[in-house]
């Protein structure tokens, strides 16, 4: 696999502040990405790709798995629009998700994020990033809180 060029200056823990808004991003979970994602997590539920099956469900047509929003809400995706990169070695400590609606394959989602908190504990640097995800109708379909351990 081709490694992507990592561009820009590193964003360090000291560059981040509580209340800092990150640029809104949009993301489309295309059918191709969804297929690859489901293969990567080994999920064979027909609700996601089988239209005939999904039509008979309460959703009326295929949907994306609620947790698949995690593909777009990664720290690097959220930081990228700042023209910066995260230092290597970032780890995930805690996550919270609330699911409040559905999105369909090939719909473009909008994601608004901000730094809700940052703190140090036992010598580790934690950052809390809150993201709200909206479908094309403007419904908030999910909210996430990522708590990565910032490398430096």
């Amino acid at each position: 696999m081709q490694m992507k060029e990592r561009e820009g200056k590193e964003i360090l823990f000291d560059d981040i502040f509580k209340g800092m808004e990150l640029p809104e991003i949009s993301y489309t979970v295309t059918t191709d990405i969804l297929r690859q994602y489901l293969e990567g997590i080994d999920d064979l539920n027909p609700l996601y790709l089988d239209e005939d099956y999904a039509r008979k469900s309460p959703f009326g047509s295929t949907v994306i798995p609620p947790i698949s929003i995690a593909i777009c809400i990664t720290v690097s995706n959220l930081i990228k629009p700042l023209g910066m990169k995260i230092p290597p070695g970032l780890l995930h400590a805690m996550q919270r998700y609330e699911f409040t609606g559905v999105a369909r394959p090939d719909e473009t989602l909008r994601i608004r994020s901000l730094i809700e908190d940052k703190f140090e504990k036992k010598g580790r640097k934690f950052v809390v990033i809150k993201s709200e995800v909206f479908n094309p109708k403007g419904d908030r379909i999910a909210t996430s809180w990522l708590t990565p351990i910032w490398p430096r």
Partner: protein
Amino acid sequence: MDWKRNLEELSMGEELPPLIKKMTQEKITTYVSAAEDYNPIHVDVEFAKQTPFGGTIAPGYQYMAYISELMVREFGEGWFFGGTLDLRLNRVVRPGDWLVTRAKVVEKKEEQGKRIAVCEVRITNQNGEDVIVGTATARCR
């Protein structure tokens, strides 16, 4: 598939049927490619060897999805509309690890007219070590 679970059908302490999966480098690479999140710790074997992990590790998001899969299977619509997930990642997952995903009903409650099942969720590896622990809730009828 039952699209919304009846809270009465669930017993306190009930263990929902687990999911068992094996992590492989191929699955990691496929996942990373879908997510376009090319952290070298997941895919670059030579880089990963130089880190304290000594080899590649799977993205947390990847196996976290196993819990969501289990909750979709058990709670259907009640997971999509009103589900919550709180997780702590305790341990890394490496290619070759066998992972068991479990959910246990620990509380049944009604809040503002909503009927909610609370589950303790966890993923353990082949050594019985906790990889992820947390809480998931889903709406019921």
